[in-house]
Every structure is written in C-alpha cells, then in structure tokens.
C-alpha cells in the first residue's frame, strides 16, 4: 500500500484527475448524448428515442445546409487570413522592434483589452459606431468622402468579419509572439550576414520558425469562428447564417434531434480541418 501511494504514477493520476473528471462528465458525456439524440425521431409534439437516419437525410438533402456550411467556411477563411496577417505583423513589431521586455509585456497585455468586457456589450457598442447615423458615417459625411451614408457598415458580412477579427486576433498574436520571442536574435544577424534581405529573412528564417505558433493560432481562430453563432446573429442583424445559427434556430424550435445531427456534422467538419492542419505542421516536433 505504501509503495502504491508513493509511486510516481499515482501522483501523476492525482494531478490530472480533476481535469479528467470535468472533461469526462461535462464534455465527453454531453457529446455522446448529442450523438445519441441525433438519431432520435421528432413529431410535431414529441421527441421519440429511436435509431433513425432521418435527421441526417434531411440535413444532407437540403441545399440550405450546403449554403450555410459554405458561408461558415467563408467567414472562417476570411477571418483566418485577416487575423493571421494582423497577428503576424503585430507579433513582429512586438518581438523585433520593441526593445524593452517590460514594454513588450505591457503591449501584449494591451492586445487583450477587448476581453475586459462582455462579448455582447462589445458587439452592441458597434451599433452606434457603424449604424446608418453612426459615428463612422457621420465622420465620413462631414469629411466629404461620401455623400450617402454607407449601408454596408452594419448588419452585413463586413460587420460580421470586423467583429470576428476584432475578437480573435489576440488568439493569433499570443502564440505567434511566443514563437518569435524564442528565435535567437543572432539567427537574424547570421541571415543578414549571408546577404538576406528583410523579406528573405522573413520567408526563410522567421516564418519557418514561427510555424508552430501560426498553426496553434490558426486552430484557435478557425475553431472559434466555425463554432460561433452569436456574433453572426448580432452583427448581421439576423441576415446572414452560419452553422451555429442553424443549430441555435433548431434549439429555439425545440428540434433537438435535428440540432444534434447538425452539431455532429459541424464537430466532424472542425475535427477534419484541425486534423488537416496538423498534417501540415507537426506541432509535437516543433514545440
């Protein structure tokens, strides 16, 4: 008994036990539940336990599904490209232009400011800014840049992407910055010594060494955007749809089996995307 208690294995198990318990009860079990419910039958007034593929048949038979999934991918791809661009340049600035570590940390923390208030409040506060009579339009009108208020600033794909980028860029910055900070400065000098231009230093030294950070940030952003529904609902003024909204609408109509089937398909899609990305860069090797 003593030997068992003092073994390293037990200590290890005790350390991970709380997380394992939480994940098992509150993540694995619900997902299993969702998979089971996705095969149930619905009538107008009841949900019947069964093993029926009707939910999936309906899902894959409807053109709406394909449009909505396509739209979800579109949002994810555009947001990913923009957050990657912004995240990379901001990290570059923080890692290679800011000299003092204190300033670096302070500025990196500044990137998290959008998280200091609730998501809903943040999105609602876009309305007086981007609306037809909002600050942006008034400013542009008074400067004479435009003659009519711009209609596409709010409740449009533009505002959805804007909110996504605003929300998710920090998830790109932090891992890329972490990778960049670990690049030995003498590598940059060695590249300069070998005649590399700043652009060549970026493509031949910095980007290859930042790959793990870029990949981790990309996984964060893609999974967050693909699973989102509230941003799309608020920022598009309920005019655009993504898979998350499809699910939330079903839930609103108490169509749990249908919502579950859509969830399962979304989950598999996201897992597939992440698996493909992991094939591109072996994070284990590069961490």
């Amino acid at each position, binding site marked *: 008994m003593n030997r068992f208690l003092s073994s390293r294995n037990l200590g290890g198990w005790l350390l991970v036990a709380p997380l394992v318990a939480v994940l098992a009860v509150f993540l694995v079990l619900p997902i299993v539940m969702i998979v089971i419910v996705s095969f149930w039958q619905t009538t107008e007034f009841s949900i019947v336990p069964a093993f029926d593929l009707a939910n999936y048949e309906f899902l894959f038979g409807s053109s709406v599904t394909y449009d909505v999934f396509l739209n979800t991918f579109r949002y994810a791809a555009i947001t990913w490209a923009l957050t990657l661009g912004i995240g990379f340049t901001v990290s570059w600035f923080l890692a290679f232009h800011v000299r003092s570590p204190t300033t670096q940390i302070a500025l990196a923390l500044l990137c998290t400011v959008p998280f200091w208030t609730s998501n809903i409040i943040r999105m609602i506060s876009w309305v007086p800014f981007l609306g037809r009579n909002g600050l942006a339009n008034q400013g542009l009108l008074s400067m004479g840049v435009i003659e009519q208020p711009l209609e596409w600033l709010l409740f449009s794909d533009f505002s959805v992407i804007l909110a996504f980028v605003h929300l998710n860029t920090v998830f790109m910055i932090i891992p890329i910055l972490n990778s960049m900070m670990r690049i030995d400065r003498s590598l940059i*000098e060695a*590249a*300069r*010594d*070998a*005649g*590399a231009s700043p652009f*060549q230093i970026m493509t031949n*030294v910095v980007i290859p*060494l930042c790959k793990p950070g870029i990949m981790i940030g990309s996984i964060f952003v893609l999974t967050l955007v693909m699973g989102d529904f509230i941003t799309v609902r608020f920022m598009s003024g309920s005019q655009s749809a993504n898979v998350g909204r499809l699910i939330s609408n079903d839930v609103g109509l108490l169509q749990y089996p249908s919502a579950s089937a859509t969830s399962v398909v979304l989950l598999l899609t996201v897992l597939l995307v992440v698996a493909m990305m992991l094939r591109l860069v072996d994070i284990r090797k590069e961490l």
Partner: protein
Amino acid sequence: MKGAWVRGIRGKNDLELVSLTKRYGDTVAVDGINHLFAPESYVCLLGPSGCGKSSTLRMIAGHETVSDGAIILDGQDISGLPPARRGTAMMFQNYALFPHVSALDNVAFSLKMKGIAKADRQARAMKLLDLVDMTHLAARLPAQLSGGQQQRVALARALITEPSVLLLDEPLSALDPFLRIRMRAELKRLQRALKITFIHVTHGQDEALALADEVVVMNNARIEQAGPARDVWGTPKTEFVARFLGGHNVLSLPSGRFSLRTDEIAFGATGHEAVVTAVEFHGAHVAVTARLAGDQELLVRTPEAAFYADPKSPGDAVRLRWDESCLHPVAP
C-alpha cells in the same frame, strides 16, 4: 588541395581601422582605435569582457553601426555597407545555425539568398562541407550535431561567401577544453590553407598566444598593445598587458614599475630576501608565491625537478635573484 576553391590570387586585403569609435549613449565601448591588420594573418583580439573587442568585431562585420571613424578594407571604406557586401563573414559565438534546415542548407543559405539554383548551390555547399570534413553529416539538422560539428558547419557557412576577412566571435568558448584545443588547430590550418585574414575575439590568453600571428590586446575601449604574439608576451608595454597575459610579475622599484617573467626568477644563496607564502604543483612546473621585503608578492615558476631537488614550504625564508636585463619597464 582543399584550399584550392578560393578564386585566383587575391590582392593585398589590408584591413585598417581608423579612429574607430562606438558609443552607446554616454558610454564609450570603443574609443577611437587605430590599427592596420597584417594581411593573410591570424589575428586575435584579446581582452577581458567589456573591453570593446566584441563591439570592434561586430562593427567590422556590420552588425553594429560605427559611431565615428572608418573601416578600410582593400582601399574602400566599408563602414556604411551592409554586412554581406563588405567582403567579411562572421562566425557567431553560439554558431547561430538555422535550426530548421540541414547542415547542407545552412551552408548553402547565402547562395540561396542570391538566387542560385538548388543543384548548383548544394554542390558548392558540399565542397565547403568537404573542407571541414562534414560531408557525411550534410543531411543532419543542427540539433543532431555535436558542438564541434556545429562549429564546422558554421565555419563552412561563413566561408562559402568567399570572404577576405573571417570574423570569429569567441568561437571556442562553447566547447569543452579537449575539443577546444583540437578545433583551434583546425582553425589555424584552415587560415593557412585559405590565405585570408582571420580575426578571432577571445578572452583566453593561452588561446590567443597559441593561434595568433598578431595579438591585439584591448582594455577599457582602447588597444593596449599589438604585435606578434611572442613580442607582446615577451615585452608587455603596460602593467595591464603584463598581468592579463600572465607569466609575469609586476615589480615596483624605486626607478619605476617593471615586468619580470615568472620563470626568470631563481632561488639561490644570494639575492632578495623573501618568505614563501604558497606552493602550487602545476605538473611540469611548480608555482611558488613569495613575499619580498616591502610586502610585494612575486610568483616564481620553477621546473618541477629543480624544485623537488630542494623543496620549499610556506613560511620558509628564501633568497630570489634575477638578471637586471630581464626587467622591462611598463607603463601603468
């Protein structure tokens, strides 16, 4: 012959520093130094940490801006040029190999930057790896190489640009003592084969003496003394050089301060009275510390056999003598 890849015969690749100065804010790291390096020679910049030797090297390389003065190579002021256009190449202290590419691609890096086709640049990189006997490990990543092997790759990478001056920033400090001695022989052999100037920064005086055709001793942002290794060691001009190079005592006499080699002092029946304070066995020699009247300490290096023929212990009263011609005046 392995050095034959160097194109043709070069002209005189004289490297000259003209009142070269580096200031960081109010601190002066390099204070207007002037020096003409002998061409095709192995030069060691020697000094304690913070003496300005690394800043000097990095200014020559182009990784540090020049606050004042000029660096002349082959008749041209290179101090405003980017590193790769200076005709210099640098080998970094921790080698700075790119961790994500193989040894071969590390060596071929500068050729890739010039846009030379893959097959061509890899063939040329292979020749350089052959020069440092590393062809068999060409496909390895830097992390899969030992310290000595990494250094060889770094050397090949610096040499592929066909520099007329190779700059080495404490190249041996990361190696264990055994490997250090082997690698320094290798460096010297390469320098002889390539017939280019090597400028090697070090704080180890034994390393400098072993390698250098010319030693440049720096202290407090200035050059204290420069010259052939044997001259600098044999006749140090300043007290600092005498103490830093070792093997010397600095004696205060009424007529001034003098350096006196530790192996030119002998025990005898006549001479200056002293008391032994410490005895250390160093293998071939024994180092005896003795205190002269007037509280000056002297280090005496005696051959081991001579010492044990008439051993001394701490506390023994002895007499020390030396030839007056062995005293060299030193500036403070």
